[in-house]
């Protein structure tokens, strides 16, 4: 028992700070990328919903352009996107490795995913409800803010938890090219130095973070859902 404690303490002294920093960096990348992803993806999702042929401002040209951009970005595997974007990342952040730099490709990968999530959430809103608002003189802006976003909020929250999980997974992948965070630690220590224990521990942390985010998201979604008892 005593030996185990000593071993644990030794492990903590050697890797503790490293792992805590890894968790911090992972959260930093995931949350910020998702945030920036929404700044780009949310308006895209709204525009997709509005300009769809069933939407309130059908516009085939705008819809098709966005649709194609999103499909192309979504079909590039993340690791390749990350490499493709190195010049952009360098221009924006000044370097292409480390957690801050990784936010750039993560945001680019998250935005189209978010746009699709938002689009599918908003399209769930009952057409009759939109029509009722229109009949009361609500402008398109009002309908977006109070009806579409307001009525789709449960679905939007569920979408956000899915996005967070996916972005976290991507952030770990970025470890391959020195992206920082838990994925980076797993690659450097677990893969290059054969310290399998470290890999296992990072995996446990990643799973735990995903679980917590998922749990929180579902809790918020449940609270905001007034359609069922």
């Amino acid at each position: 028992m005593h030996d185990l404690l000593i071993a644990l303490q030794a492990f903590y002294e050697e890797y503790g700070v490293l792992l805590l920093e890894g968790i911090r960096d992972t959260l930093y990348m995931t949350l910020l990328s998702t945030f920036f992803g929404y700044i780009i993806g949310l308006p895209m999702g709204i525009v997709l919903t509005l300009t769809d042929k069933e939407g309130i401002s059908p516009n085939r040209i705008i819809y098709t352009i966005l649709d194609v951009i999103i499909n192309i970005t979504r079909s590039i595997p993340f690791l390749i996107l990350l490499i493709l974007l190195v010049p952009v990342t360098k221009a924006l952040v000044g370097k292409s490795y480390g957690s801050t730099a990784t936010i750039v490709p993560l945001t680019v990968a998250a935005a189209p995913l978010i746009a699709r999530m938002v689009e599918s959430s908003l399209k769930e809103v009952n057409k009759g409800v939109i029509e009722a608002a229109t009949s009361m003189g609500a402008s398109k802006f009002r309908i977006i803010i109070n009806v579409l976003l307001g009525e789709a909020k449960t679905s939007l929250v569920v979408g956000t938890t899915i996005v967070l999980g996916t972005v976290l997974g991507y952030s770990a992948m970025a470890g391959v090219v020195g992206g920082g965070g838990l994925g980076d630690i797993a690659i450097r220590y677990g893969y290059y130095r054969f310290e399998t224990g470290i890999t296992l521990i990072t995996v446990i942390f990643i799973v735990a973070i995903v679980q917590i985010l998922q749990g929180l998201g579902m809790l918020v979604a449940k609270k905001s859902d007034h359609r069922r008892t």
Partner: protein
Amino acid sequence: MSETLLTINNLHKTFGEKVVLDDISLEVHKGEVIVVIGPSGCGKSTFLRCINALEDIQGGEVLLDGEKVRKDAKNISQMRQRIGMVFQSYDLFPHKTVLQNITLAPIKVQKRDKKDAEKEALELLKKVGLEDRGNDYPRQLSGGQKQRVAIVRALCMHPEILLLDEITAALDPEMVREVLDVVLNLAKQGSTMLIVTHEMAFARAIADRVIFLENGVIVEESANPEEFFEKPETERAAKFLKTFEFERE
């Protein structure tokens, strides 16, 4: 006759090749209740939806107090605020409470004071017997209660005319009554209404004028509902009314 509120001139509406409304003209006077009846698919609902420009029209015009109602007009929001509409499927906002449902448009669209809007909403709810349901969500209400809330939601905008589109068609029989009583009360208070319904007894009781629509044209129009329901002038209206009667030989 009191002054004309709504004028519809030669309204023409098509869905692709199909003509849905063909050369419909109608004048609605202030305080008048007009009931539109006719077989399914005759264009009744579309007719109502053209009046507040939920549908665009291919010909003719709709005038409210002499002002054109057009889907792409700058003042369409103002015009729609003056024309209230209640739908068959209630279409309440599921994530908003009854009170929020009613006051959303008065506050956000008409920029009225929140307190005033809520006060009025509660008064109106009281009139339809739902004063204690303000903080409930739509899912907690029965169909009849939802439809009464939807009527209050339309009334709270102070419309000059109300369009009621088969508002009891989705309700259980015992709930139809409570909704129709609300509408009867509105008629007594002098509201101007254009009603599409399949409830013939109700139509007979409430109508100042009856319009029988079939295949997109007004087949018969009568300012004497009693007479219309007893002895319609056209054979088609007679045949239609016959479908509501049952006889055991």
